[in-house]
């Protein structure tokens, strides 16, 4: 009940916002903030009350929804989803605050769409029915399209359409795979019998049952590929990544934050929830270290890391740089998942969460700078360190966290992913460490070009970061430090779930 409340409070908020008069912008913002703070409070409550000692799903709600197809409204959380729900709920109010001053037109529609988006994201992470999962997955697409397409930068329409079509292309393949799973869900030893189902926990059990159609290796491989492409577009995994820089560059700050912080995680979350748990044999086929296909998932992770990092090094647009760095960092998640061991998967999940926090910070910081200077050209700044010391300090913190400095959260996820991956893919992991050096290079180079050196006289009068902006950054910064110093704080939320997942993976 708590969980359902959390998911649908933003939807109620959307209706309330739509009922408010158009002129009272302050009221609209306040109401939106309220309706994003409620899920946050609920998420914190869930996070605290979540029973860490079991791997099973908790707070389960399971009621029939569309009975003709045996579709249920089945939601529940395990360690992985509760972590990401917390992240989503945390970024909600932060994004609302970040949008407080810099959305110039149609604030009411903006906020309403944002709340709809939040419902979609929260629902996605809680859904335990494949159909519901898909519905929420697609539900995020629509508000995102409008948020980029209406409130974005000069090439917003191109970026929005690219984002929409690209994601849709992926989700169509996913839909096909989903239907294939559904149609085979009642086939045992070639005989169809009983009700078909979309229920994820049931499907996981069925996929591990000897003789069941879902447990067939060939079937698993093909369905794995279908789902994988759907999620790969979202992650994004090379070569499906080119929508990301465009979408980020055009999207308003808060939407970039959501895009990098949550939407990318939907891809990797899907990989864990569906691809890994449901199709362990499919996963095995692509990660057994045997030949090209057996290394392919790790190879994609490696390409993401190195390719993303090098591309980031060459960027001169601050936001594009951060966008490419996201691609690089998501590579660590893929690499960790491909390792299929507890270090790798834990590292990957931690990296998902940490990247959500860190990239959110980075995009907020870029937004702060953009609001002042009205451009994002890295070479156009210089010497801001003496003008904006606090801003510089926070940026340095975020950069260091992102480049994997120990003591900050980025390191733990990366290090665990690499440690896990090294066990299986020695050469690829060693090559992936190039990404660490290049990552340091582009962040430090950016730091130098923007903040060090003599102050660019054009920016003599640039105001220091203000209290509202610090308010958006401080929680994330604190989380970065806390998770860097005490990662078990997050890890023990999902360590049981990971153990469970590894048991599934090793059962084949």
């Amino acid at each position, binding site marked *: 009940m708590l969980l359902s409340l959390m998911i649908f409070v933003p939807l109620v908020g959307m209706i309330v916002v739509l009922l408010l008069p158009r002129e009272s912008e302050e009221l609209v913002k306040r109401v939106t903030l309220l309706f994003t703070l409620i899920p946050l409070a609920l998420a914190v409550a869930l996070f605290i009350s979540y029973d860490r000692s079991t791997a099973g799903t908790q707070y389960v709600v399971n009621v029939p929804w569309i009975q003709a197809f045996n579709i249920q409204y089945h939601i529940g959380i395990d360690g992985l989803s509760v972590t990401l729900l917390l992240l989503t709920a945390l970024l909600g109010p932060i994004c609302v605050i970040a949008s407080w001053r810099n959305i110039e037109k149609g604030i009411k529609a903006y906020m309403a769409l944002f709340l709809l988006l939040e419902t979609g994201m929260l629902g996605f992470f809680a859904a335990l029915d494949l159909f519901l999962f898909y519905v929420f997955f697609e539900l995020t697409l629509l508000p995102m399209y409008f948020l980029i397409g209406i409130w974005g930068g000069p090439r917003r329409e191109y970026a929005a359409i*690219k984002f929409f*079509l*690209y994601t849709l292309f992926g989700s169509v393949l996913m839909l096909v795979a989903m239907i294939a799973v559904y149609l085979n869900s009642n086939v045992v030893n070639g005989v169809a019998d009983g009700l078909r189902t979309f229920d994820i926990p049931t499907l996981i059990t069925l996929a591990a049952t000897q003789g069941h159609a879902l447990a067939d290796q060939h079937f698993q491989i093909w369905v794995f590929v279908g789902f994988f492409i759907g999620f790969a577009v979202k992650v994004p995994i090379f070569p499906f*990544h*080119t*929508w990301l820089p465009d979408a980020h560059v055009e999207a308003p700050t808060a939407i970039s934050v959501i895009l990098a912080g949550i939407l990318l995680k939907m891809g990797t979350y899907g990989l864990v929830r569906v691809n890994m748990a449901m199709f362990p044999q499919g996963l095995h086929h692509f990660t057994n270290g045997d030949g090209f296909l057996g290394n392919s998932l790790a190879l994609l992770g490696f390409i993401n890391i190195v*390719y993303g990092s*090098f*591309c980031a*090094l*060459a*960027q001169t647009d601050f936001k594009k740089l951060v966008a490419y760095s996201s691609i690089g960092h998501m590579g660590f998640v893929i690499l960790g998942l491909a390792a299929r061991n*507890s*270090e790798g998967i*834990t590292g990957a999940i931690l990296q998902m969460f940490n990247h959500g926090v860190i990239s959110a910070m980075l995009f907020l910081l870029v937004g702060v700078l953009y609001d002042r200077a009205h451009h994002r050209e890295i070479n*156009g*700044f*210089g*010497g801001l*360190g*003496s003008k904006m*010391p*606090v801003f510089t*300090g926070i940026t*340095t913190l975020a950069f260091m966290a992102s480049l994997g*400095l*120990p*003591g900050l959260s980025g*390191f*733990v996820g990366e290090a*665990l992913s*690499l*440690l896990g991956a*090294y066990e299986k893919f020695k050469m690829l*992991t060693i090559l992936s*460490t190039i990404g*660490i*050096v*290049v990552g*340091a*290079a*582009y962040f*430090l180079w950016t730091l*130098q*070009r923007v903040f*060090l*050196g*003599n*102050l*660019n*006289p054009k920016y003599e009068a640039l105001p*220091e970061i203000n209290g509202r902006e*610090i308010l958006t950054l*401080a929680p994330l910064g604190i989380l970065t430090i806390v998770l860097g110093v005490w*990662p*078990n704080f997050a*890890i023990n939320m999902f*360590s049981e779930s*990971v*153990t469970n997942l590894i048991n599934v993976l090793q059962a084949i």
Partner: protein
Amino acid sequence: MVVPLISLILLCPLAAFAIFGLLGLAKRSFPRQDYLSTAAMLVGFVCSLLLLREVVPNPETHTVKWISLGSITFSMGFYLDSVTAIMLLVVTLVSSLVHIFSIGYMHGDPRYPRFFAFLSLFSFSMLFLVVSDNLLGIYIGWELVGLCSYLLIGFWFEKDSAANACKKAFLTTRVGDVGMFIGMMMLFTKFKTLSLYGEGGIFTLAASLNTGDMVWLSIAGVLIFCGAVGKSAQVPLHTWLPDAMEGPTPVSALIHAATMVAAGVYLTARMFPILTETSSLVIAYIGGITAIVAATIAIVRFDIKRVLAYSTVSQLGYMMLGIGVGSYVAGLFHLTTHAFFKALLFLGSGSVIHAFHAMHAHAHDDEHDHAHEDHDTHEHAHGDDDAHGHDHEHGDHDLVHAHGSEIPPDQDMRNMGGLRHKMPITFVTMLIATLSISGVPFVFSGFWSKDAILGGVLERAMEWNSVHHYLLFGMALLAAGITAFYMFRLIFMTFFGEPRNQEMHNMAHESPLSMTVPLLILAVLSFPVVNKFWFNADYVKPPEQPHLYAPQHAHVSPDSKTEGKGFALSLFGVSEAVAAEEAGHDTHVDGEHHGHSPAHDIAMVLSICVAGLGILLSWLFYHRRTLSAESVANSFRPLYNLFWHKYYFDEFYDGVLVALTVWKARLFAQFDGSVVDGIVNGVGRLTRDFLAVFVGFFDNRVVDGIVNRVAEVTWAVGGRIRRIQTGAIQTYLFVVLAGIVLLILIFRAL
């Protein structure tokens, strides 16, 4: 008692930094951050002193779980043995003195509080590194000191040279760190732990590896050593350290001379038990080459800080060499003595620079460029635009940057001379340090530590009858001679002779008390006061190094009668013997000779000879001027050029590696923009322009054609049929009636 003490040592500086950070978020700063940080460090120093007695007799480990994943646990913890205790003492002591020195040196800097906060953060990180009992903890401290080094080198970030230097330092060391991380991954995959000590620790597990694993273990050892190569500025990753002199001089003293750069040596020493013969030899060679390369470069520098920087690199090479040949104690001993005398040298140079700078700022008072007013302190010589080149343009920074050979005038030894009368305390203390580093016998600590290394190398060479080690001994000896030469060159050029720049000379003055007191304390420490610990076998016990003696070496070794015995000897006997010879005689302080080892006697005699020769030559060149440095330089022009251009390392890195990386990045980005995105857009365009046109045609002509035909037919039929609809109500009624009649008739018929 141990845990609270270590916690206190760590928490004090961390708290000092945290206060700064939290207040910074509120855009404020603690008014007396300098006292806060210094007090934190002094507390640490006192605790370290107390700890010194705690460690006898047994090392202790205290751990807590940090990350637990099913069967695997990463723990964090303290490991306290004699080496840790001595390192803690060295770090807290030097750090305290540098803090005090900075109160005078940094006075008036607009970012004064920040400087102390960074120093505190550094001290915390360094101490964390020192006390960590596992590789992960060491790595964390390792990277954090790197961050602090970055922040402090770039403290005066308005200078482009500083901004470049800090970036270079971070990136160069990170290359090494990645190597170290790969080494850690290898060890972790093998042992499933990163803890070093105890039953399940790496050292215990590694000791039971068989010979088949030696290649693997050697690679892992060398990779871990890569981290040390980066951090301790060993060839080929040494180029960042001289550039790091862009930072304030106290930073150079603390981070880039005494502590952080020595962390590499400390790490290598910590990894001693898993070093194999091959990896040890690699370490020894890297150390030896570094010692020579850096010393030769130092000969031709004119920037007082660069001379010291290259000297540091060279001395670090020494320490590595010592550890590489198995002289564990000697390497760490040299680390300790070097920390004191090199910190003293840097602080002394800082004192000189400070003296010159105060004058300099004054002389150019009227030329203040107000844009730079807020950072025109100390050696950041803003006034000399010609030398410094403020010609850089914004937005024109490049990852590749030119290496300015411009020397700030207050650091240029060619502007100095005759300062001994002006700055007596600085002069005397620096002279003591110089005598110590040059290896002047018996009364200076540097002599003992350097001799321990030289003796260790020669002993290993004689024992194994190994060409490698004789070669290494030759290199070490040569480096020792050169060291004496360039250090005295520095002293002669700075303090002796006639003032070369009278204007600057007139303004020079002795530094304030807060700066001279640390100098004096460090000068006292340059006498052999710490030797007692190192030559006390009860205090420092070198760890066993089970893999150093591979079986094939046994028959080469003249000591061993049979292979079996050689191997057995290798496990315990020899390493103990080495230790006993180096450390077993606590009477060395008095200058007594090692009775058992001829190697140490030979080494000592030779080292005294080369040091004397070096000092003599230096005196002839730079004081008596009976020999001309210019003419020698001219007659060895190619060699001189090689030294002057620092063996072209920077040119190679910037011109080849960095350029290649940037080129590759641009290539990738272009590829991404044109090929990958091109394909995506191409598919989009193809769909729109080609497929869509085709489908459109099909749609228009075929699909829509059919629809239109159907519509037309319907239309035509409708046109005929509508005539029935007359609109006349009576017609309708008639039809209805007729229909009814018809129906009746039909039903009747049925």
